[in-house]
């Protein structure tokens, strides 16, 4: 009764209050002019709620009493029309000085009350906390679980690691794992799939270039990717100072055309050129972006591709292989190049899928026999 009377009378001198109820059930009486600064409360009021204790406005669950009092402080300051922009700004700056937990809760509460200026303010504050920090620091601040697998973390979308060798190793690592996965899969694949191997030498050489090329000459569903990507290295071969993968494929091209003749002379010729290139390129970080070009469609923004769970034993094996691989890259590249070239040549005739190391050695020997 008393409330109804109050509604009808509404003297200008007396401030009107409205009733708010938070998710925990507690009621609060707030000056109307302050509360209607929140669009949510304003709408509820227009549909008739909040004028009495029995019909309070139920606030969304994300608004706890503590957050509500903060929000009301904000509203109380800003709803006064006469304040200058400078005053408002300085109030805002002091207002958001709180720990991150409360800041997140406040953002959430303000968003549920549709109080856009406060959401903007808190988002900007949260953005400032994220800006310029390393992932570890950010995880620390916001208590985020560190639950990405190593590979996912090693392949940041914008490459922040600058050391070219580390980047190279990361890529090799990823690629190696993919190869192993493929190998597992292919053990169950029908043999007929590999019978007609009409791919050129470049295809086979692409286990150096390509991110997902299978090192064995077996046709898999991944062929399409390989072919497409190889167009890039081939395009770049016009300039001779490109990365090794490009030069190998170029030599591969030449080899392909002249395969009926002896491969040897061409091998040597390209070897010399390639060797110089390779050794000089390994050191230059500038060249590595070309790797990115040829690898990257898979690796840089790789989402689900590397999300495989490999058991620890396999992982160790992979680690060892990668180390092996990397070491060989750094030290005996020229020899390796020769092996690879001859491997390519041999692959045309021999149709088996074997482990990498063993077959290479065998092919080399076979090649020597041919000479």
């Amino acid at each position, binding site marked *: 009764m008393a409330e109804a009377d109050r509604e009808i009378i509404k003297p200008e001198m007396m401030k009107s209050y409205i009733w708010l109820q938070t998710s925990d059930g507690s009621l609060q009486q707030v000056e109307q002019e302050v509360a209607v600064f929140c669009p949510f409360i304003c709408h509820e009021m227009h549909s008739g709620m909040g004028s009495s204790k029995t019909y309070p406005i139920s606030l*969304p669950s994300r608004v706890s009493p503590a957050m509500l009092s903060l929000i009301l402080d904000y509203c109380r300051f800003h709803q006064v029309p006469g304040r200058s922009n400078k005053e408002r700004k300085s109030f805002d700056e002091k207002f958001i000085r709180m720990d991150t937990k409360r800041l997140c809760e406040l953002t959430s509460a303000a968003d549920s009350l549709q109080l856009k200026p406060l959401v903007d303010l808190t*988002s900007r504050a949260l953005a400032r906390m994220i*800006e310029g920090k390393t992932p570890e620091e950010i995880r620390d601040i*916001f*208590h985020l679980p560190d*639950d*990405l697998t190593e590979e996912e973390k090693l392949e940041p979308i*914008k490459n922040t690691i600058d050391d070219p060798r580390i980047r190279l190793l990361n890529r090799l690592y990823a690629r190696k794992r993919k190869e192993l996965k493929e190998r597992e899969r292919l053990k169950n694949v029908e043999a007929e799939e590999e019978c007609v191997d009409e791919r050129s030498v470049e295809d086979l050489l692409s286990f150096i270039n390509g991110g997902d090329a299978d090192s064995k000459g077996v046709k898999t569903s991944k062929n399409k990717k390989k072919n497409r990507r190889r167009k890039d290295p081939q395009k770049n071969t016009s300039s001779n100072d490109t990365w090794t993968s490009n030069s190998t494929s170029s030599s591969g091209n030449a080899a392909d055309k002249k395969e009926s003749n002896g491969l040897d002379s061409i091998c040597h010729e390209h070897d010399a050129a390639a060797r110089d290139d390779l050794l000089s390129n390994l050191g230059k970080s500038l060249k590595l972006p070309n790797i990115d070009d040829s690898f990257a469609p898979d690796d840089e923004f790789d*989402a689900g591709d590397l999300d495989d769970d490999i058991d620890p034993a396999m992982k160790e094996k992979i680690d060892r292989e990668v180390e092996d691989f990397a070491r060989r890259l750094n030290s005996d590249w020229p020899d390796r190049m020769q092996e690879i070239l001859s491997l390519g040549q041999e692959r045309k005739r021999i149709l088996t899928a074997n482990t990498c190391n063993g077959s290479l050695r065998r092919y080399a020997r076979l090649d020597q026999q041919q000479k």
Partner: protein
Amino acid sequence: MSSMKQWEPPKVPCKSEMEVDNITNLPEHVIDKILSHLSLRDAVRTSVLSSKWRYKWNTLPHLVFDNQSVLVSSQDQTLVKNKLVHIVDHVLLLHSGPIQKFKLSHRDLQGVSDIDKWILFLSRGALKEFVLEIWKGHRYKLPSSIYFCQNLIHLELFNCLLRPPATFAGFKNLKSIDLQHITMDQNAFEYLISSCPLLERLTLMNFDGFTNLNIHAPNLLFFDIGGVFANVNFQDTFQLAVVSIGLYSNMGFDRNLPFGSASNLIKFFGHLPRIQRLEVQSYFLKYLTAGKVPRRLPTPCIELSFLSLRINFSDLDESLAALCLLRSSPNLHELEMLARPEEQNAARVSANIVEEGYENCPFNQLRFVKIAGISGLRQELNFIKFLLANSPVLEKMTVKPSSTDGGWELLKELMKELLRFCRASVQAQIIYLDP
């Protein structure tokens, strides 16, 4: 409204209440808002924070590719281009949801054909803001797909060539255009302006291909132009409130217009009834003097509260035009008169505007005056005297001479005169600033 769990079940046992992750479960639009305050680079880097954060950046509605968001440190143009193209391609591919704003403004990028691809992609979505700044190389010719982005609200181009196709029907939602260093032909320009019914802001700097500015835009509020043009015609721009015009070269106007037509002053202000702020820069005041300069405008600019004039005080016509303007602006609140330094020998040097030129003309609202670049000439002093005598509520006048080349004597005279002038306003401060 989604209900948010207050606390995520902690992944590691024995985590105290204070170490709970509160941010990951904020609603998507809030996360977008947070990420949009970061550079694109930082936003994309959040994908390595945790498994839930891997794709949070994908729904960013604003994509900005500039030197901060994309770090490519190299002088090799091909390298930069490849890397940049790569990155944009990838971001666009991985992105999901509407792209509302796209800005490409990398200092090392020239106009490459990949931009055409991206524009085509964006035009199929709901693009609202498009900013393209080509900092190196030739004017980049925009593909036709940009002209069919019907949701476009803001278009900003730098160093581009615009050639809309014949089927171009205007931007029905465009409110703001900013064109700088562009090439376009006359008809295309006029059609562009007139076919955007909601256009409110127009900025045009350094353009070629057209010299007549026929502005047909009934909703235009803001107009900022700087370049070389032969004439400017406002048609039905009755809402225009803020105008800033700079004519960058002295076109050498014929004092007597052929048909004895109305002076440029009258023509110019004829369609600007609601003008509030006006900046007349470079040689535009000279342009306004063509035709017979009237004593005052037919209709006063009653809403004009800020006026800034770049003027050559020694030029009689310009001084008359300035006086005409001043007389027609009874509610002027703030005035700037900046001397154009290079011209000391104008065609008709005014020895002295006769005293009637400066009769009583009260500026009842004028509070702030700034005079700059003067060198102590008689005409300049006359103006100052005129203003001081007619501004009863003047609060502050700052006078700053141009850098002296040994004209100390003249400046001393200037200062002495300033002190002597009688002031209509008791609280007027005259502040002399060093050159």
